[in-house]
């Protein structure tokens, strides 16, 4: 009897294990309804108000488009979770990705080609050329463009005031060159004991920020010679830029004692008054991180232009996109385009999409986030949406007079896209160079860049097919 029970239990256990492998098998859906799994959905427990608003908009959309069902998904893109989800075929149908990840995602073959749906809607010709360049690879458009921006300096007003750097009107005289930035940041640290400038050094963020400095000093990172890509940044120009970074620590004494800073830590330091200035962009996402996530007083946020150098004033172009995974059906692509339009992100708007945009602005207002009086960087160069969106922005504009004026002198800054080849790998190498000059006062800037350029050539550019 005992043996029989043992046998039955073992059989049951084995059956369960085998069952585990098959229970997840998807059953073929034979229905006319298109289900679109939309990521970046607000979490019901942590953001109940946003969630309620999103669910309301979902219901309205589904009522307007009876054949489409929106399935909310709270996952948001992150560099380290994207690949496992893609490999497991678990990516949602429509989700946010930043400009910085475009090459990697397209090269990995995980992005759906959206050319036909965007072309069919007549959106390609209405797209700003700069943005169209960003979403196009080998003639195919892989992303829905949502917004773009250029980087600048964000400041913590309270700390700047404590350091005595605000004028009688409480406004900031922003540094026009990187040398001025170093001197200003050094003064702030000397007076407040807090970092005058927050310099990220990890997770490729150090390299990403460094591009703005290096371009201002005239650095050329790579060039194509006889059909081959060649690393060029072992140059006096890049040495001057890296020397400036070194000076931030050893000459101006402007940085925090902690060297290991990534973007999340940098934003936290700025928000909590542990640092005064940070290269950032005052877009909704950054403002939300500072105000909503990190508890920064919105009235303490100021922004200025990217400082310049001997060769000009450049700022990295960034932005957000929406993508769909490769292999997604044509019906889903069309449903996604409808959802994109419904959110007011397309070039044309109607009553419903304007309502979504207005709800969005109201949500920003309720969160006390600064709202600019116009759309700063238009994704579309034509379409009925341009004026309508600007009117809405103006209606809800609430930013403090003078706090963002310097940043808004946009025509004095040259926007630049990322370097064409292996930009992320380049940032990793530059992170290391930055860490080296921050660790050692006697670090050899020339040798560091020689080694980094050699590594970049050998490990990446030589492998470009």
């Amino acid at each position, binding site marked *: 009897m005992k043996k029989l029970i043992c046998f039955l239990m073992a059989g049951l*256990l084995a059956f369960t294990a085998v069952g585990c492998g098959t229970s997840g098998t998807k059953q073929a859906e034979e229905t006319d309804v298109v289900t679109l799994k939309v990521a970046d959905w607000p979490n019901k427990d942590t953001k109940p108000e946003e969630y309620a608003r999103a669910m309301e908009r979902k219901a309205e959309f589904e009522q307007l488009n009876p054949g489409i069902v929106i399935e909310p998904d709270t996952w948001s893109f992150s560099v380290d979770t994207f690949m496992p989800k893609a*490999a497991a075929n678990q990516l949602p149908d429509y989700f946010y990705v930043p400009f910085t990840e475009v090459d990697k*995602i397209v090269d990995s073959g995980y992005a759906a080609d959206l050319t036909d749906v965007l072309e069919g809607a007549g959106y390609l010709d209405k797209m700003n050329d700069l943005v169209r360049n960003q979403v196009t690879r080998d003639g195919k458009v892989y992303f829905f463009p949502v917004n773009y921006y250029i980087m600048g300096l964000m400041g913590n007003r309270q700390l700047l005031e404590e350091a005595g750097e605000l004028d009688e009107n409480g406004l900031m005289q922003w540094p026009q060159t990187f040398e001025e930035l170093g001197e200003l940041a050094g003064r702030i640290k000397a007076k407040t004991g807090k970092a005058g400038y927050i310099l990220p050094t990890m997770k490729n963020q150090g390299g990403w920020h460094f591009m703005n400095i290096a371009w201002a000093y005239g650095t050329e990172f790579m060039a194509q010679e006889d059909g081959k890509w060649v690393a060029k940044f072992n140059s006096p120009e890049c040495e001057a830029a890296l020397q400036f970074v070194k000076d931030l620590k050893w000459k101006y004494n402007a940085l925090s004692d902690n060297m290991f800073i990534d973007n999340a830590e940098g934003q936290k330091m700025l928000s909590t008054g542990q640092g005064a200035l940070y290269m950032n962009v005052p877009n909704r996402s950054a403002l939300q991180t500072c105000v909503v996530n990190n508890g920064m007083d919105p009235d303490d946020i100021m922004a200025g232009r990217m400082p310049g150098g001997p060769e000009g004033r450049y700022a990295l172009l960034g932005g957000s996109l929406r993508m769909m995974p490769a292999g997604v059906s044509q019906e889903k692509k069309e449903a996604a385009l409808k959802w994109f339009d419904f959110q007011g992100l397309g070039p044309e708007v109607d009553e419903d999409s304007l309502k979504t945009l207005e709800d969005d602005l109201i949500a920003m207002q309720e969160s006390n986030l600064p709202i600019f009086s116009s759309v700063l960087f238009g994704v579309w160069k034509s379409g009925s949406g341009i004026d309508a969106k600007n009117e809405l922005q103006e209606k809800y504009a609430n930013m403090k007079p003078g706090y963002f004026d310097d940043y808004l002198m946009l025509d004095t800054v040259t926007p630049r896209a990322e370097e064409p080849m292996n930009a992320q790998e380049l940032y990793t190498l530059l992170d*290391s160079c930055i860490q080296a000059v921050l660790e050692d006062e006697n670090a050899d800037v020339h040798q560091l860049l020689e080694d980094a350029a050699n590594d970049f050539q050998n490990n990446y550019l030589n492998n470009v097919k």
Partner: protein
Amino acid sequence: MNNAADMPKGRKRLLTRIAWRIKKDAVAWLLLLPFLLMIFFILWKPTVQGITWSLHRMQGYNVGEFAGLENYRVVLGDTQFLGTLINTLEYVFWAIVIGFWLPIVVAILLNELSLGKNFFKFTMYMPSMIPAIAVSMLWYYIFFPNESGLLNMVLGWFGKDPSTWLQNSKMTIPLIIVSNSWKQMGATMLLYLAALQGVNRDLYEAALIDGAGILKRAWKITLPQISGVILINLVRQIIGVFQIMEQPLAMTGGGPNNASMSLGLLGYRYAFQTYQIGSALALNVVMFLMLIVLTAFYFVLQRKVNQDD
């Protein structure tokens, strides 16, 4: 016609014996089946698949054409590879210097205790129950480079300047190993304690009668008696630390200037940061081969220890 009657006698006997063994062990096999299936799907299949895919051009996780040893050329030709391998060996070295002997000493001391043994056992084991990432963050703040870091606070009490700790490339690996050893010590110590409790008490009593002190007893009786377990743990520790990844990822990101980059972390970077799946697979196969040598050594050692026992 091929039937049982036509079979040679030896073969028939062999088949009968196999059938008898299967019947005898049927329950055991059935009980093992779920775990075998899990090991197959979670371990064996991905391992074999990883080795196969490492020989192909990969686009994301989509397998492209056969590329031979191209991924291996890229990984082994990476200018970071040698430095990272040396770092990894440095991790192993410091793990032996810092983390290997400590659990043995603690286990011997605990074994000698007659009061509060269970309390200390639990206390020592506590760090092993904390998630690895939490331990890393805890030590990250202990080593924080300004006055708010715990160690720098202590230095401040003695009028010393704050140290940069993890930011000093010469100290990064030993300090990461300190945090790792703190977490691992409790579990390893329990293994030693279990081995110590198997040592014949008569030996100690005889030594006591002969007037041997704690050090002499430890040196002359305890260590020789548990030398097998010590050897096995040494190899296990080497294998474990060779794969170190989470601690440098959480504490330094591999910095400063790659000073704490390990092979495991380099593989993570290939796979999850730069999406070079082919390179990540090839690097892991290289690590796998290195670990196979160590594991083979471990099994030989284990067999020898079991025979000696």
